């Protein structure tokens, strides 16, 4: 039996040391009246169920507490609003809430607040962005009937129910979740802001709620969302959770681009900037000194092969291309060393990460690559490289890759296919990419499962290259059904090894986050999910 209990997770000391260091010996600034500001891009939504981009999530995690939170160093789950999350079979989970928690309007946080919120998010006709996160709860299908003829004239029928059968409230502070299949990582997934509770008032008018959400976290809205200008928050006086705010309030100042936000940071007009533009990183290191922060992130870039294309059938050809790429040189040239070259399918922040599971097939070796390329018989016709146009650096690194392939493998003709961002994923899903393409993965939660299942599982939602290996599928489900996260890691690592041997993709690099802050604040902790821990910020 697996059991997560508040305060019993082995992260206490490390977390404490971190907080103490972050406070800089400040001591009792608890009652400060001062506020600070954070630069932000305009979020799409502030309703937790409808927000899936990091800007919205940053605001939501200031306003809402979640069931669990993840340790920024180890990635392990700790309890936030949950007192315990337990299961005997990793399929039926019992979640018990801590007592005495309230929303900003005084309403009690109950099991029902969670169940109602989850049902609303999973209800297809609501059209919320986090709908698919609930897909592994029993009864989800009844809320999301499939379109009988895909894009055809017939429309999907109206759902027969608006409540998932897998959610059951047992008493005021306890509810039971039944999953469609065992998932040992379930407590981890609950750290996502899509799973927070909603107060009753939200259901009266979701649109109004989106403009000034009433949460249960350390900060509450101070007025409504001023679009394209600012979102103002103040400390929640009735807060009973485990992360009380140190500052009296904070303002999210909205910027259309990070260049301007960086100038404002230099001028001292904004206190925290989460993403320093890549071009400014070298000078920011100099200018900001100790106020420059470099955090490893969970986002990965891969070069994926279209396995549905016969020309890429030979694994030696895929090895050859992988070995002909000098990852180190590209990250230096294109990203000013801001990203780190990678030989793994999972990010360094994920429990179970290994430095080099790929070995020689991801190591830059021009002669070895050429030998394998010749052995595979080369490639017919021009090689096309596919990427989306949403960021100019994609073309830059693809051009660098092309040059290396030309030089090291002697491929004479390489073409670039730059696709409008909005069409890119559809193009890949429809198997229209006729050559290696950029594959990017932003994790949903820091588990190897999240890096393997969706991308390389046979039915993975983001498996667009046509890869399938029954052994990999078996190992992933073994990991999902394991008794503990620790035990699951062994299976995920075996799966990772197998995938790397088949090489449907080759790892390129792992993103890092460069941030900065002003002299005005201390205690800045930015986690691998690119979120600032607002409760810990101390204003001088």
């Amino acid at each position: 039996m697996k059991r997560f209990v508040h305060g019993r997770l082995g992260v206490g000391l490390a977390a404490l040391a971190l907080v103490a260091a972050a406070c800089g010996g400040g001591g009792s600034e608890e009652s400060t009246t001062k506020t600070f500001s954070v630069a932000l891009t305009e979020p799409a939504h502030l309703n937790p169920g409808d927000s899936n981009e990091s800007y919205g999530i940053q605001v939501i995690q200031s306003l809402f507490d979640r069931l669990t939170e993840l340790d920024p160093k180890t990635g392990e789950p700790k309890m936030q609003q949950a007192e315990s999350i337990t299961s005997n079979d990793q399929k039926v989970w019992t979640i018990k809430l801590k007592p005495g928690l309230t929303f900003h309007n005084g309403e009690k946080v109950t099991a029902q607040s969670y169940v109602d919120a989850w049902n609303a998010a999973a209800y297809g006709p609501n059209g919320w962005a986090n709908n698919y996160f609930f897909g592994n709860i029993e009864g989800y299908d009844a809320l999301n009937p499939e379109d009988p003829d895909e894009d055809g004239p017939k429309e999907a029928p109206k759902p027969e129910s608006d409540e998932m059968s897998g959610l059951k409230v047992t008493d005021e502070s306890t509810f039971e979740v039944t999953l469609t299949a065992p998932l040992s990582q379930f407590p981890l997934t609950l750290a996502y802001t899509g799973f927070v509770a909603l107060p009753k008032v939200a259901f009266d008018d979701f649109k109004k709620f989106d403009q000034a959400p009433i949460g249960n976290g350390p900060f509450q809205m101070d007025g409504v969302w001023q679009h394209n200008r600012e979102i103002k928050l103040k400390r929640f006086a009735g807060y009973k959770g485990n992360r009380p705010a140190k500052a009296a309030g904070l303002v999210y100042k909205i910027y259309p681009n990070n260049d301007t936000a960086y100038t404002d940071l230099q001028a001292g007009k904004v206190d925290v900037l989460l993403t320093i533009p890549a071009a400014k990183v070298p000078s920011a290191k100099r200018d900001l000194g100790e106020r420059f922060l470099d955090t490893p992130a969970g986002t990965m870039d891969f070069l994926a092969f279209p396995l549905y294309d016969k020309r890429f059938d030979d694994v030696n050809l895929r090895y050859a291309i992988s070995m002909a790429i000098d990852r180190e040189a590209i990250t230096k040239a294109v990203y000013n060393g801001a990203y780190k070259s990678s030989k793994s399918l999972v990010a360094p922040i994920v429990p179970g990460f290994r430095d080099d599971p790929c070995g020689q097939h991801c190591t830059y070796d021009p002669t070895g690559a050429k030998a394998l390329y010749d052995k595979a018989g080369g490639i017919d016709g021009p090689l096309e490289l596919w990427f989306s146009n949403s960021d100019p650096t994609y073309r830059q690194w693809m051009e660098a890759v092309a040059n290396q392939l030309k030089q090291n493998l002697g491929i004479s003709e390489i073409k670039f296919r730059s696709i409008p961002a909005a069409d890119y994923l559809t193009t890949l899903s429809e198997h229209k990419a006729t050559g290696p393409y950029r594959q990017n993965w932003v994790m949903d939660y820091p588990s190897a499962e999240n890096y393997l299942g969706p991308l390389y599982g046979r039915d993975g939602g983001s498996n667009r290259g046509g890869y399938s290996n029954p052994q990999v599928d078996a190992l992933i489900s073994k990991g999902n059904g394991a008794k503990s996260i620790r035990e699951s890691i062994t299976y995920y690592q075996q799966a990772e090894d197998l995938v790397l041997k088949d090489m449907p993709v080759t790892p390129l690099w792992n993103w890092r986050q460069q941030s900065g802050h002003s002299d005005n604040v201390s205690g800045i902790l930015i986690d691998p999910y690119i979120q600032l821990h607002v409760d810990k910020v101390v204003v001088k």
Partner: protein
Amino acid sequence: MWRYVARRLLQIVPVFIGTTFLIYALVFALPGDPIQALSGGKPVPDSVLQALRDRYHLDEPLLVQYALYLGGLLTGDFGETFTGQDVFTLMSEGWAVTAQLAITAWLFELVLGVSLGVLAGLNRGRALDTLVLAGTTLVIAVPVFVVGYTAQLLVGLKLGVLPTAGIDEGWPVSYVLPGLVLGAFGLAYVARLTRTSLAENLRADYVRTAVAKGLPRRRVVLRHTLRNSLIPVVTYLGIDFGNLLAGAVVTEGIFNLPGIGQQVFSAIQSKEGPMVVGVTTFLVLAFLLVNLIVDLLYGVLDPRIRYAGSGARA
């Protein structure tokens, strides 16, 4: 003259319908599925896709979508964005900012531009004239984003006299620097236009007559010469006001002003038809109105110009 004004105002109606349809069709023709773009790379379940397509009528053909949009417009409903915000509220907030920015820039063009032009024109061939000519050439040659970032670094960051970005300090403080950057090109142009026009008119027969009559130089320059020299300048200022409104995209981006320039930029990226159409239609209307005012101003400046009922200027 009132018949002329009424006729010009009536002409706006077909122009309005034409532009809204054209722009709606253009946005419709943009490639890509806006709902997929919203999802940020994560899979979207069928049921969610269907719900959002229904909500924004994305499955309907162009003409039906446009009719629905126009119908809404007649009842005062400007539609909503894909993030569920009311387009009218967004637009009125954006317009307030952009209008303040454009007016600031325009005032710079008018006051600084005309003064510099008059100074240069009166001192033709001398050092001051050369200085104005060289300075304006430089401003016209350098792209606006270079001027913008440089001004922001120098004035905002190094000297710290004006805010680097944002509208926190309101009008005029927050708008001075962006207004100057936005108006720089027009300012240079107005100065050169005024200079040339003034210098030419100073040699005209009627000026020689005025001087011969013994009028004081001040009166000759201000009443007789400048008034006549301003006609091309006013034409330019009129057209440029529209350009200032439309051309604020770059300046608003640099200085983080939440105006319509930024709104329309992000709206085009996310295929938000109602937003793009709303903003551009208002732009067209503003452009038409300003031009009408300019045409009426000719009569004030030059008494020889009269407005015929036929709509043609005689």
